[in-house]
């Protein structure tokens, strides 16, 4: 079977075999009939949907949120953590992804592991995310004018900066202002940054030798109690599950939205959007219930917030006589320009203890090669060579979870007793590793389309992911590896593995598929995230990103969502 033939059959197995279909709400069957025509219907209860719903509800608007997945009981987080740590031949997904609901195909050049890259449920993919929240750089909004590639965003950093600050307050970002490469900010982060790890100090010495500056990492993770949630207690399993609640999940804002009067329906996948006779406004979101009923939720305004794959899919599924190519798709750009960040990594062992796997998050990065990835550097005892190659931005990460976790080794070992303890002592303790993110440029051929050959549990064509990694991205991955190698060599690391151009994988950041722009001929939404074609449809999402940068996208998603909420508030 070639990569192009691969589909989600194996991933689908998990939910089907365990009986843990996506119905985690249990026997209770809450009222899932629609409300009367409301002010705003939000599709998707992840971070964008949660933030929009909360802000609008607290300002007095009638809001209904329709979420395809279930509500996951917070009381079960520790059991989910155990499920994440323990190997299981039944292949159970921690967040119940898979099965007919989530089927997909990947006819492109490369397989894309979609169902490990997202979560459907109240909280969305923040349920399993790492929680890294950086602002995009000013340069990211001006790729075309600055580098002559791709396109500029129709908004700039200065416009988004106040919303970034609001997003940091909403998510509870722990950070510091020690990053000399970061874009300007007016105020400190709401929470103090997590202190560097012991292994960070080893990296810092090596980086100084080759002229690389390190700094703290903004985390959407409580370094002290914040917003009714605990400080981090160090379970070390942040991704895919934080049992303490210290890591932000969008459940927080969905709950606040409900407290402010919003109505949130779970397990109601939206099947299509229906527009008025003039084709100018969306009239209703048609959704299905677990009892296989279908209802229409009418609203004055609609907000699509179901991520970079389901947003374009829903627009394509909403094709009508008037819009045979899908809703909001007169440009033909819906689903196109799919981008992800690619991972570059390298690691090995040193002849000293490195104290890994105490926590599951990162405390040091370097953004030195972000705005100028080809720049050289010179340190006290070495250098990073410069290059003139055409490259994209690089974000360097220093991992706190390099090498194996002892408990996971023990659970998978083919021995026990003293033999096992010897293996664990030999296997744990001396590892170090670096990661890096590299962004793809938008390319029309990378796209989400509908697969006419396969349908989901409601008979809708599943998303087909056409995806390949281009030469520029591979060149940038190679550059990231070059920098990583210099640092690790300066540290005296016996390098044992690397992930680069030939074996890279996606970081699960789905971007670009309903791109923003001023020209309705080439973009789906305008600079304020409203679709060009329909006057009451907004898409605050990474799907609106014009370019990807190399920063984790969720803080920018949150900033865009808060901006859309303000716009909607003033219009309604």
């Amino acid at each position, binding site marked *: 079977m070639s990569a192009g033939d691969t589909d989600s059959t194996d991933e689908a197995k998990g939910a089907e075999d365990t009986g843990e279909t996506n119905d985690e709400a249990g026997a209770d069957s809450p009222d899932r009939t629609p409300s009367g025509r409301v002010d705003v219907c939000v599709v998707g209860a992840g971070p964008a949907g949660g933030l929009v719903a909360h802000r609008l509800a607290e300002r007095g608007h009638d809001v209904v949120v329709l979420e395809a997945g279930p509500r996951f009981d917070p009381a079960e987080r520790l059991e989910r953590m155990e499920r994440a740590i323990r190997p299981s031949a039944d292949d159970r997904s921690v967040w119940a992804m898979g099965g007919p609901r989530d089927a997909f195909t990947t006819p492109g050049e490369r397989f894309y592991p979609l169902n490990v890259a997202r979560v459907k449920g109240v909280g969305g993919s923040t349920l399993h995310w790492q929680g890294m929240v950086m602002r995009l750089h000013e340069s990211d909004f001006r790729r075309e004018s600055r580098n002559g590639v791709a396109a500029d965003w129709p908004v700039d950093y200065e416009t988004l900066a106040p919303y970034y600050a609001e997003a940091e307050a909403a998510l509870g970002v722990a950070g510091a202002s020690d990053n000399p490469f970061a874009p300007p900010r007016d105020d400190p982060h709401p929470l103090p940054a997590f202190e560097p790890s012991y292994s960070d100090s080893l990296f810092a010495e090596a980086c100084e030798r080759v002229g690389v500056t390190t700094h703290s990492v903004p985390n959407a993770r409580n*370094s002290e109690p914040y917003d009714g949630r605990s400080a981090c207690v160090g379970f070390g399993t942040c991704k895919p599950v934080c049992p303490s609640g210290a890591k932000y999940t969008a459940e927080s804002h969905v709950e606040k939205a409900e407290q402010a009067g919003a109505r949130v329906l779970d397990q109601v996948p939206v099947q299509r959007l229906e527009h008025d006779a003039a084709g100018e406004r969306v009239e209703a979101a048609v959704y299905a219930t677990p009892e296989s009923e279908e209802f229409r939720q009418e609203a004055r305004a609609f907000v699509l917030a179901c991520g970079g794959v389901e947003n374009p899919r829903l627009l394509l599924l909403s094709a009508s006589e008037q819009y045979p190519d899908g809703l909001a798709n007169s440009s033909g750009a819906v689903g196109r320009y799919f981008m992800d960040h690619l991972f570059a990594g390298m690691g090995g062992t040193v002849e000293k203890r490195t104290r890994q796997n105490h926590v599951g998050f990162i*405390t040091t990065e370097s953004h030195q090669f972000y705005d100028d990835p080809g720049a050289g550097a010179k340190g006290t005892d070495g250098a990073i060579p410069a290059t003139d190659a055409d490259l994209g931005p690089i974000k360097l990460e220093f991992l706190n979870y390099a090498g194996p976790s002892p408990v996971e080794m023990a659970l998978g070992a083919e021995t026990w007793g003293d033999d096992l303890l010897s293996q664990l002592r030999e296997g744990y303790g001396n590892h170090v590793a670096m990661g890096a993110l590299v962004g793809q440029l938008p390319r029309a051929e990378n796209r989400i389309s509908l697969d006419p050959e396969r349908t989901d549990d409601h008979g809708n064509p599943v998303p087909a992911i056409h995806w390949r990694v281009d030469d520029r991205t591979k060149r940038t991955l190679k550059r990231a590896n070059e920098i990583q190698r210099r640092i690790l060599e300066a540290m005296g690391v016996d390098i044992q593995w690397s992930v680069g151009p030939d074996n890279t994988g996606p970081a699960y950041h789905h971007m670009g598929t309903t791109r923003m722009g001023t020209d309705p001929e080439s973009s789906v939404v305008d600079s304020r995230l409203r679709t060009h074609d329909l006057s009451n449809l907004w898409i605050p999402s990474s799907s609106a990103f014009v370019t990807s940068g190399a920063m984790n996208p969720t803080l920018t998603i949150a900033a865009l969502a808060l901006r859309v909420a303000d716009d909607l508030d003033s219009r309604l």
Partner: protein
Amino acid sequence: MELTRRDALAALAGGGIAVGSVGALAWDRLDEMDDADAADEKSSSVPTGETLVALAEAVYPSAVENVGEFVETYVVGRASARPEYERGVVETAALVEEYAAEWFGAPVSELSREDRDELLRQMGVETADPIPDGRPAQRVRYYVVNELQYALYTSPTGGKLVGIENPQGHAGGTDSYRRGPKR
């Protein structure tokens, strides 16, 4: 290195079981369950706790002390909070006793540490996938070996054996990752 009841409680907490909710954690509690729900399925008269402690003494490193109390607290705590686990562990312990009687002619607790180890290996447990409703070796891997390993290596004492005082799965705070190794 001595395992403590506190280690077992920490491992239980990591599995989402609050001790206050399950009362006293002693084998007689499990024996009562043996007599009730699981009795029909149980194929050996050897008390479950006796079998599990004997197996833990083979599965755990020899440097570990106080295995009996640790395993009792952990297993009974899990069984009290999760009926499906209780049934599985009682049945699986009895299954191992059947093999012990067949192959070694004695209960597990009367076998040497080496023979207990050999019993598990002859069953194929070391290479078996952990499957709760699988073949005997797979069930033993799931309900006995991996349960015991999860309890030990997510506990602070188990972690320290390997050099990590805050192992994954244990809420050991945010100080240890910043500390250097002890010299």
